[in-house]
């Protein structure tokens, strides 16, 4: 394993190889285990890799956030897990083990048993996921009937219960409404009700509050977390809002240019981010503490998937880049965390609020 001399001297952190393929998956007992996930799309010039060896786990009942700038592969990761990638011109490799079963190998029919029942999903724009021609009550009841042997009447009752559980006032009346007659916040609640009605073991929420106002966002987040706690549902929460992750998740994954670059507890990340990219995201948030001060920003842009740097993918934007960064970076374990940066241990990066 490569290791710089400087790193050993300047830090008390322990470092070990953690290339995902080295670790023993079978014994981890994680609810979700994504192994070396790669996704490519075909264009005129050939196959373009979008996700590169994405690997992480989500434990039962855990809340895990995924953060990163747009285009870094957050949504593709979610779609891969759900088996919702486009069928044509798209190639996926790697393993996705859910509750002990490799769902990457399941076909569309198999996935239909998993989706909605075992893994629920909430999207940023609920209108795209709700059918405009059916009432929300019918849509939730339909989800129930897909997965459980119940009478239409019971399915309807469960739908109303689900609407009540997301604190919709007058749930029975709401069940008779069409999606277009609901406000953005209400629609998102309906989506959550629909995602949770089958009590899935995992809920994937992709930017569930990005389109909402901050007071409504607070309502929805409170609801998501409370329902998660009550039913023991694990949450994979995708957002570009680090502040939201700070308040709601136990663990974060930072994604950059189609790779996981940092993985660890939220507290540890906020106190001392390991990857310069995570630190850059934290530092560029305007705060209430130093109004009018110059904000630090991350120079440059996320590289195009067609034009990836050969070494560290963050290298061209990184102020800490040195000769060792010319090598492709591996995801390495540091204490209980993982990071894809050769200098992570030696650099002591500033966290939030300090």
């Amino acid at each position, binding site marked *: 394993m490569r290791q710089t001399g400087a790193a050993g001297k300047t830090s008390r952190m322990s470092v070990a190889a953690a290339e995902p393929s080295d670790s023993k998956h079978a014994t981890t007992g994680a609810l979700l285990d994504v192994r070396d996930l790669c996704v490519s799309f075909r264009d005129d010039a050939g196959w373009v890799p979008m996700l590169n060896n994405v690997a992480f786990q989500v434990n039962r009942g855990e809340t895990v956030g995924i953060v990163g700038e747009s285009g870094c592969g957050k949504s593709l990761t979610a779609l891969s897990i759900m088996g919702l990638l486009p069928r044509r011109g798209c190639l996926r490799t790697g393993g996705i083990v859910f509750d002990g079963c490799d769902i990457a190998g399941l076909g569309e029919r198999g996935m239909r048993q998993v989706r909605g029942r075992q893994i629920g999903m909430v999207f940023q724009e609920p209108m795209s996921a709700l059918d405009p021609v059916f009432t929300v009550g019918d849509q939730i009841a339909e989800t129930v009937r897909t997965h459980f042997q119940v009478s239409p009447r019971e399915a309807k009752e469960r739908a109303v219960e689900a609407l009540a559980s997301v604190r919709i006032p007058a749930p029975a009346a709401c069940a008779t409404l069409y999606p277009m007659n609901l406000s953005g916040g209400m629609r998102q609640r309906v989506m959550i009700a629909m995602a949770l009605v089958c009590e899935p073991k995992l809920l994937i929420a992709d930017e569930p509050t990005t389109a909402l*106002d901050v*007071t409504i966002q*607070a309502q929805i987040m409170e609801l998501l977390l409370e329902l998660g706690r009550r039913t023991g549902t694990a949450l994979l929460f995708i957002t570009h809002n680090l502040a939201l992750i700070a308040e709601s998740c136990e663990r974060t994954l930072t994604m950059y240019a189609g790779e996981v670059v940092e993985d660890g507890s939220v507290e540890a990340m906020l106190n001392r981010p390991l990857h310069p990219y995570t630190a850059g995201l934290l530092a560029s948030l305007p705060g209430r503490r130093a*109004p009018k001060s110059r904000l630090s920003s991350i120079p440059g842009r996320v590289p195009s998937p067609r034009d990836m740097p050969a070494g560290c993918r963050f290298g061209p934007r990184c102020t800490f880049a040195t000769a060792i960064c010319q090598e492709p970076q591996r995801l390495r374990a540091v204490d209980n965390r993982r990071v894809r940066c050769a200098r992570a241990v030696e650099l002591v990066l500033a966290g939030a*609020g300090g």
Partner: protein
Amino acid sequence: MSEARSVGPILTVENLEIAFPGRRRGQVIQAVDNVSFTVRQGETFGIIGESGSGKTTVGRALVCLIRPTAGRIRHFGEDPFALPAKALRRHRRGYQIIFQDPNAALDPRMTILQSVREPLDVAGAGTRRERQRKALEALDHVALGPEMAARYPHEISGGQKQRANIARALVLEPRLVVCDEVVAALDVSIQAEMLNLFADLQRDFHLTYVFITHDLRVVAHISDRVAVMYFGKIVELGPATGLMNAPLHPYTKALLSAEPEPVPAHMRNRGRIVLQGEVPSPLDPPTGCRFHTRCPLAQPLCAQRDPEWRELAPGRLVACHFAKTPN
């Protein structure tokens, strides 16, 4: 109106009301309801509030894109709407607005340079050479070089489009720029860059900004004073630091407490107020204080009487029956 500079502040808004016709006959949407404030030259005046609270509508009226239903807008003490049509068109060049969606503002068939030059072409100012030079200068101010100038909108990133959009507003050398959610669609790293750019441009060109956003972090960072809108009304107005540190209105308090903080748990401000209920319908506004349907402190009086504006401390105004003087 440059001679009029000494007559008054760059912008005075007095009892502004703007109503739109609803979908059905006779229906009225009161988008802006009795709004008053002034903006001093060189300051950044922030407006925050939830979706539909009337921020954009106010912003458009400030730059003469909407005529007030009632009340008055003055630029340096003069009512621009009193100007004859041709003079109003000229006058407008000094008062620009930049919108959230840079795609909507840039013509996909024009190069960036053409788009930035277009307002000058329309104004017919100077020779073509001069206009070209001015447009290139404006692009340079927003850090877009000549190689970017030749590109089309689809060939540049979102952040670069927003820069081009700013250049398009700057090329007319405005005094006041209304920025409507200009950083909302951008990633935090690019957002930070843009906020720095706005600060530089303000310094270099003595610009006055009205900065509309629903992002508290952004408004706290950039503003000198802040107005908080709820349902067509300003419910609180004051210096940014005071308002952010010690909000007076229950809605401002709720807004601030709902904003997540990216800090470790032990540093976090406890005591979040999660507002219950939805934003009311604009077709059926609540009686009395507009906020009473969601206010955790509402009393019976609140549903009956609209609270008056009160100045509880110098420069700190609030519209709530029960707000107390900050200590």
